[in-house]
Each structure stands twice: as C-alpha cells, then as structure tokens.
C-alpha cells in the first residue's frame, strides 16, 4: 500500500498535535495537585485529628484541579481518533 505525502503529513500533524496537547496540558494539573497534596500533608501534620476531613477535601480539590488535564486528554483523543 502506497501512502501519499499528504496522508503522511496529516498523520504527523495529528501525532504532534496530540502529543503537544497532552504534554503541555499535564503541566498545570501536575503542579496544582502537587501544591494541594503538599498543603494537605502540612495540615495533617499540624492537626492529626482532622485527617479524615482533610483527605475528603483534598480529593475534591484534586478533582477540580485536574479538570484542565482532562480537557487536554479529551482534545488529544479527539485529534487522534475522530479528526
């Protein structure tokens, strides 16, 4: 099967685009969740009796912080699979 140059270029663009979307989109949520985890650990060390509440709130904040990463995951899937 022979592939033309245009098809090869389209595939290359898709791969580069999806990789850039996922890689750059993962920076923000990574830093945000790291911050959340670090401060939650601080709070737990200071007040060990509040561990349960802090863990629930930490998971909630994590879920909100990772939403931009989820958007970029969706974009990457859309580029790779449906575009």
């Amino acid at each position, binding site marked *: 099967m022979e592939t033309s140059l245009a098809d090869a270029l389209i595939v290359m663009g898709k791969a580069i685009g999806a990789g850039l979307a996922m890689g750059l989109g993962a920076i923000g949520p990574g830093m945000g969740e790291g911050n959340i985890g670090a401060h939650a650990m601080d709070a737990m060390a200071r007040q060990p009796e509040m561990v349960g509440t802090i863990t629930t709130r930490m*998971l*909630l904040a994590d*879920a*909100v912080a990772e*939403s931009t990463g*989820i*958007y970029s*995951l*969706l974009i990457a*899937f*859309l580029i*790779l*699979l*449906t575009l």
Partner: protein
Amino acid sequence: MKKKAKIGMIIFLIIYFTVGIINAIYFVPKDASEVTQGLASRWIIQISDKNAWYTRLNPLTIAMSWAIIIGLVIFAVKVGKNFKLIPDRKQSLTESIFDFMYEIVESVIDDPRFVKPTFMISTTLFIYIAISNVVGGAVPGLNVSLAGGSVKFTLFTDTFFAPTADLNTNLTYALMVFVISHTFAIKAKGFKGWVKSWFEPNPIMFPMNVIGELAKPISHSLRLFGNVGGGAILTFMLSYLVKYLLLPVVFWGFFGLFVGLIQALVFSMLTVAYISAQIS
C-alpha cells in the same frame, strides 16, 4: 451473615474471571486499528432527512437514563413505603447519604430559606450521577460497537454505556443548575438586586461578569464529561493493551468507582457552591 457475604464474593469473582477469560480467548481484536476504529463515535439514529441537531437521537443514552431513573424510583418507593423508627439496611443507606449531603449544604448556604431546595437539587444530582457513573464504569454488560458503519451488539466485552459519558446529559444538568441559581438569586435579592449584582464592583466589570457566568455551565458540564468519557476510552484502550485478561477489573474499579463517585460529589458540591455564590 458473614459466610453469606463470603460465598457471594467468591461467586462474583468466579463470574468475573470466567467472563474475562472468555473475553481474552474469543473477543480479542486482531490489531490496534480495529479497536480504535469508531471508538469515540456514538450510535446515533436519524429521525428525518433534515440534518439538524433536533433530528438526531442517542438511543443508548436515552435507554440507560430511563433504566437508571426507573430503578431509582422503584428503590425510592420501596424505601419510602415502610419508613420505620428502627431502620433496615436500605433505609439506613438512604438516611446516611441524605445526612451527609444535608450537613454540607447547611454549612455552605447561609440563608435558611434556601437550604432545603438546594439540598434536594444537589442530592438528586449526586445520586443520579453516582449511579450512572458506577453502572457505566464498573458493571460489565451490553456493549455497542460501530465497526465499519454497522451497529454490533456484544455482551460482557465492556461496561455499560454511562449516560454521563454523553455531553448532552451533562450540559442539560449544568444549564439547569445555571437557571436555578439565577432564579434563587432573583428570589433572594429581588429583581433590582439581581440586576445590580451584574455590575458589582463597578460597571466596567460587566462583560467580565457575563463571561464568568457563562463559563460556569461549560466548565461544570465538560469536567464530568471529560472524566467519564475519557475514563471509558482509556479503559478500553488499556484493556486492549493487556489483552482483556484480568486488569479490566482494576481499571473498572478505578475509573468507575473511585473517579465516578468523586466526580459525582464534585458536581453536586459545585452546584451548591454556585447557588450559594448567587444568593449571598
């Protein structure tokens, strides 16, 4: 009681592993392109020839939504009919969920008039979304694939379709929350106060306020859609990479139970937060 649970667990695991091995032997596709073909597309029925948004139907979304709604209604009628002072298991489950949500809502909403309506809205959303995420993420069942333009039904190759993996469902709920929060704002502050709240620090900020309000339902709905839909796609691809043997159970547990329940909680918490931001 404990022995019964143990036997149930063993039967469940045996069924799970048998289905997994059958899948591994019979249903493994030949190569990766066969898996990814038509993965992100939905089964859509065209009602008439006109190609507009209102002539297309998502049959899986509608069927799963109604199945979950009917199941919840049956459960609610069963629990509500014989409400006792000493609760049985179903009643105490219901009571603990309601108690958990009511405490959070009470601590966030200042105005005592709006505690009960907000509690009803957020708890309804939480229960529905949690059930649909768990059913769509962790329970193996009917799967519809769109390989090569034709619709193919298979049993137990993947989990059920979650209604929340369709953006239409999530956008409906997010817009509903948007309208409800502004209705509450008009009720709480009066029409004049509501109009004034758009020009809050000073009139220059009006466009910012409009954009900020319009961005709320979009991010609200896309967060849930991305988590559930992306989780489903990731599960599907990772299951292919490990040949459907044992690990789908782990993925279903993570993406269905853990992420699904947390996202349901986040959705209802954000509902409460948006309403409280509007009425205060």
